[in-house]
Each structure stands twice: as structure tokens, then as C-alpha cells.
């Protein structure tokens, strides 16, 4: 198979984590001295021989990636999806040789360039021109190559006028444009793109994705890591799904995305407090449960931009004849308050209650949200506040028209009716 450019077999990455062991019930100076001396000798040995130094008495192995095997062919665009901590970034780091695997092997044919972060190695004191050469060399371009593409890079970044200005005086937009322009003119055989690339504004994201599509249709091999199902679906025919360091799926993208969706919902979405003493709350109200779920029969269904969802709160009231209401503040991942919602105040007695708030579908934009709970007495007196009592993701995986696959800008993304009609000619 000559056209396989990446072949990974039994790939694993292990990290060691130290734990403090149990201490004896009483401590003798002799033991302390002996233990510390032993620890010191061991540490000194580790330092001298270049092994990793572990703090603590017990060492636990943690596999960030385990037994992962796959092949990628020349010209293929492979998507890699999974939750945070599933091992996607570790896999990319191994493939781009930043870190070495602890087990297994990979064979790579050709130059790998990773767009893990644009602007790596930019020096604020140097001018735009100097930074293009510096950054290009760091990303693996030869001097001749940079020279050849220099004008193109500068034109792409639209910074001609400021070439001889130190980049510390650049606006952040100019900085990012220049950095991306250098990265975009890399011509590796294998391009590795991580999601962090897509943090810029919408136009910048469009440029990134456009450049990637271009690379793919130019016959390069592209590995794309993303949470953005729409981008994965439209760019890749095949994808890998990782879960807790293991390969869950390797095959057509549609099945992969379905596999990914079926994984349990965000662990933050249901929170239970069985012990009333340690439950959050005060002497009037105690919270027992907060759950965020998609409003469908399947409890594991993810919340999408279109689907309605509900937030349930179970709570106890320890007092009779008190007028209360529990309300939410909804924040997005940038800490922007998206909305607040509150029920009418109601007379409570000493009992358990359940309240449900149903959010309509077609309202929120894609992203991670968190809820702040407030308990209000007599309509105006806030008696309890709990920040971030639950968090959940709203995903988007339905392709829109025009092939645009990024996240639309804006805090919310409601569905409004539009009417367009042709006017009669006058």
C-alpha cells in the first residue's frame, strides 16, 4: 500500500500522576528521616538519569491515548472528533512529533505541518517582515521558500504599509492576519489542523476553513480536529471518534457523528445532592437536583440549536409561609449574560418542590452555556445565589445553505420568519 501516508498501530500515551500515600497514625522522627532520605536518594537518581520525577508515594498511570490504530491515505481529509479530554490533542501532538508515544508506533510519509496555533514564535520587538521569516522558519519553511512567497503572504495579510513596524504596535487583527497568512502558505504533504485555530472572528474562520478545503482539493492529506460537526461533515468523508483515549469509531463521517452524539450527555447536565446537609442552599431553601436535558424521549439526546430543552430543579423549603421564586441567569462561554428567566413568585410551605423551565428550540447559538441560580424572596430580596449550578453544550450539526460551516457570530441565533417577494414593476 504505497499511498498510505500515516499508519498508526497500537498508539498510546501515558502520563504518570503521583499521589500522596496514607500516612501512619503516629509519626516517628526515625521513619520521617528514613522515608525522606529514601525519597531524596530516589529523586536524585531520577534527576541524574533523566527520568521523570514523581511527587508522592503512589504512582498512578494515566493513559491519555490507548491502543489507537488507523491508516490515512494520500489526499484524504480525516476528521477527528471527541469530547474534551478524549485524546484528540494528544494524538495530534504525537503525529506532529511534539511529544513521543509511550506505546505503539506511527509511520509518517512526508512533511507534517500543524496549525496548532497561529503566530507561534512571533516576537513583539521584531518587524512584520522579520517575523514572517522567523515564523516561516519555525513552521518549517526554507528561506528560499519564504522569499518566493513573501509578497503573496503580505498581500494575503493586507499589512503592506506596516511591514517595517514592530508587531507589538500592530492591532490584534493585523497580528492574527499576518500570523495566519504565514501558516496558510505552508505547503506540507500532511496538514494537521486543530480547533483552536477557529477562535478568531467569523471571517477569519471562513478563511481557515476555505484554505483547508483548498489544501484538500489540492491533493494534500488533512487531519481536522473539531467540535464543529458541520465542518467535519462537509469536509470529511471519514472520521475517527475518540473517547477517553480509545478509538470508538473509524469509518464514514455520518456514522461517526451519530456515535459521538450517542455518548452520554455532558456530565455537568445532571447534578444530584442526596445528602441534605451538604446540599447547596441556605436555611430556607436546599437544592436537591438540577438537570438539563433535551426535551425528547431519549434522555441521552444532545441539545441542538433547533431542539427545545428543559431545566428541572428539585428543592426543599424549610419554612412555612414564605413567598419565593427560583430564577436563572444563562451565560455563554464568554461570560456574556444571554438571558434571565423567572417564574412568578409563589407561596411555599415546608415541603419538597420541583420546578421546570422549558426553553424553546431555535433560540441559542452553538456553544457551552452555564446557569446561575438565584432564590428570591418576596419578589425582590435575593436570599441565595449559586454560580454555575449546571452547564451544558448546544451543538449544531445541520448544514446550512451556501456551504458556510462555521459558527455564526452572535450571542443568540433565533429562527425568525423571513418573507421575500418580488415587487411589481412600476
Amino acid at each position, binding site marked *: 500500500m504505497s499511498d498510505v501516508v500515516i499508519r498508526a498501530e497500537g498508539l498510546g500515551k501515558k502520563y504518570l500522576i503521583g499521589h500522596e500515600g496514607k500516612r501512619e497514625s503516629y509519626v516517628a522522627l526515625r521513619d520521617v528521616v528514613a522515608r525522606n532520605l529514601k525519597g531524596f536518594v530516589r529523586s536524585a537518581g531520577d534527576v541524574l538519569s533523566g527520568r521523570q520525577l514523581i511527587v508522592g508515594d503512589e504512582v498512578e498511570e494515566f493513559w491519555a491515548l490507548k491502543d489507537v490504530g488507523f491508516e490515512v491515505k494520500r489526499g484524504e481529509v480525516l476528521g477527528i472528533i471527541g469530547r474534551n479530554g478524549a485524546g484528540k490533542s494528544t494524538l495530534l501532538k504525537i503525529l*506532529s512529533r*511534539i511529544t513521543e508515544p509511550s506505546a*505503539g508506533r506511527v509511520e*509518517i510519509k512526508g512533511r507534517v505541518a500543524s496549525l*496548532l496555533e497561529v503566530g507561534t514564535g512571533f516576537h513583539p520587538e521584531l518587524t512584520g517582515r522579520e517575523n514572517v521569516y522567523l515564523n516561516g522558519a519555525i513552521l518549517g519553511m526554507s528561506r528560499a521558500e519564504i522569499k518566493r512567497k513573501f509578497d503573496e503572504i503580505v498581500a494575503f495579510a493586507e499589512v503592506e504599509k506596516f511591514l517595517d513596524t514592530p508587531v507589538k504596535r500592530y492591532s490584534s487583527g493585523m497580528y492574527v492576519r499576518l500570523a495566519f497568512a504565514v501558516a496558510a502558505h505552508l505547503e506540507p504533504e500532511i496538514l494537521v489542523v486543530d480547533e483552536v485555530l477557529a477562535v478568531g472572528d467569523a471571517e477569519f474562520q471562513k478563511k481557515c476553513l476555505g484554505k483547508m478545503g483548498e489544501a484538500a482539493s489540492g491533493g494534500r492529506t488533512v487531519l481536522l480536529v473539531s467540535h464543529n460537526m458541520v465542518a467535519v461533515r462537509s469536509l470529511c468523508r471519514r472520521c475517527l471518534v475518540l473517547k477517553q483515549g480509545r478509538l470508538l469509531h473509524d469509518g464514514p463521517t455520518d456514522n461517526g457523528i451519530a456515535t459521538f452524539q450517542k455518548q452520554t450527555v455532558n456530565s455537568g447536565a445532571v447534578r444530584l445532592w442526596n445528602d441534605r446537609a451538604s446540599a447547596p442552599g441556605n436555611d430556607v431553601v436546599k437544592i436537591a437536583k438540577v438537570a438539563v436535558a433535551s426535551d425528547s424521549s431519549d434522555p441521552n439526546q444532545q441539545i441542538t440549536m433547533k431542539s427545545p430543552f428543559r431545566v428541572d430543579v428539585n428543592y426543599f423549603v424549610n419554612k412555612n409561609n414564605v413567598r419565593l421564586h427560583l430564577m436563572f441567569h444563562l451565560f455563554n462561554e464568554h461570560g456574556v449574560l444571554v438571558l434571565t428567566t423567572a417564574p412568578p413568585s409563589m407561596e411555599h410551605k415546608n415541603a419538597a418542590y420541583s420546578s421546570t423551565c422549558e426553553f424553546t428550540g431555535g433560540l441559542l447559538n452553538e456553544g457551552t452555556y452555564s446557569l446561575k441560580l438565584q432564590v428570591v424572596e418576596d419578589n425582590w430580596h435575593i436570599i441565595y445565589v449559586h454560580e454555575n449550578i449546571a452547564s451544558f453544550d448546544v451543538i449544531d450539526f445541520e448544514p446550512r445553505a451556501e456551504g458556510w460551516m462555521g459558527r455564526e457570530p452572535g450571542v443568540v441565533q433565533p429562527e425568525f420568519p423571513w418573507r421575500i417577494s418580488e415587487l411589481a414593476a412600476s
Partner: protein
Amino acid sequence: MSTLSSELSPPDASRGREPAPSPASERVIILESGRAERNYWRDLWHYRELFAILAWRDVAVRYKQTAIGLAWALARPFLTMVVFTVIFSRVAKLPSDGSAPYPILVFAGMLPWFLFSSVLSEASNSLIGNANLISKVYFPRLVIPSASAVVALVDFAVNLAMLALLMLWWGFLPGWRVILLPAFVALAVLASLGPALWITALNVKYRDFRYIIPFIVQFGLYVSPVGFSSAVVPEKWRFWYSLNPVVGVIDGFRWCLLGGQSPFYPPGFLVSLAVVAFFLWFGVHYFRATERAFADMI
């Protein structure tokens, strides 16, 4: 696999576009746990442009950020030379080597010492200073500390020009031996690169190792024959004194620059050479052994 390939290739694979870059130029890289990379040194050569550009960046930044960059590079050795001449020659009444003026003796010792100490401090902090590169991009990590040594070489060149002026002023010219000077410059760099590689690798894991550098630099200035000739060291201690690798380097410099009036002590020089070689081997060895895990720890 061949049945799958039609199914798994991207949508437009059938459009018959030409395959990207010629496979002939491709190298197969094999990544495996604990695999000592066979072509490491070739890789290092492959990354020479990165070395050049990082070195150039360090030099450019150094002279851009400091308004009095050049003045500082001139003043420091000059003032040190004046102070040392006064203390060791006038106060302590130590002899010079042959007929060499004392300031030139001091300067010829100070040149390699400043080279040694600045390579040591630049290279030792270099990995930490470039942490963002290490965690984002692959290249042989040895490029970073060695490129940072170039800054020290630029300062050295400035100092060397000063020495040339001083020698003209005193009308004291070096003989043919001066052509061997580059060899001793290389020796000075290698002598400090060894320990520097070790310390910079340790620094990645244990940030407190950097505090050892100012100590070595301050202490070393007095235990090395910078302000005095190593000929004042009693004969029976001479051999052991040469265990300090800088002794061999400084003796070599003086031998080159002071027209052979500085006595050359071969056994001591060989000891220094052996110590330099050992530290270099150890530093490179340790660096290579820990290099692969830098990105996980930095």
C-alpha cells in the same frame, strides 16, 4: 483495503487531480516509544536555517531592546579590566606573564571568561524562554540552546575588537599563535555548552535550577585565572587547578594572544580538555535523553 479505498477517499478523489508533492522527496518517519532517532544529527543539519534565524532573532532583539546595548557591551569588560588591574596588579602585586602589560593579561583572560559565562547563562535559560515553541512545533531541541550561544559570540566579537585597540595602544602585538585563537574560542563555547545543556534540560522540570547560574558565574570569576596569571598557582596545585575547564581555556587564550610569554602547561591543558569533553558528552547525553519529554513538562 483496496475495496475500502474507493469508499473512503474524499468526495472529489475521482476528479483525477495530480497527486501532491513528489513522493521521491519524502522521508518516512517512524515514531515509537524510546526510539533513539537514527538520523538525529542529520535532522539537526536539516534545521540549520532555523538555527540561523533563531540566533539572528536573539541578537536582533538584544540590540533592539536596549538603547545602550553596544555601550553596555563595551563598558562592562572595560571597567572590570580596570578594577582587576588595580586590585591584582597594584594592590596584590601579582606578576604578569613575561613582559605583557597587566591590563592586556586581564583582558585576555576576561574575554574567554565572559564568553563562557554568557553562553552558560543564555543557553541555560533558553528552553524556558522558548516554551511556546517547544509545546507547539517540532524541531531538534538542541537548536534552541546552541542558537542562544550566538548572542554571546557577538558580544565576544565586540570585546575582541576592544582588545585589539588596547594592544595597539600598548604597542604589544601577538605573534603567529593568534591564528589558533578560533580553536580556543570553539573550546570556550563547548566548555560552557556542556553544563548549559544539562542545566537547561533540568530547568524544564525543576525551575529552581536556574538560580545556580548566577552563583557559578560569580564564584567562577574568582576561582578561574581571570584577574591573575595561572602561573601564580603553586606548581603542585597546578594539575588539580586545571580540573576547572575554564583554566585550560584561559591559558590557551593567553598563550595565543600574549605571544608565547604566557607559559603553557600541557598536562593541565589535557585535564581541562578531558573535563570539557566529559561535560559536553554528559550534557548532550542528558539533553537527548530528556528532550522527547520536554513538551509534556514545559
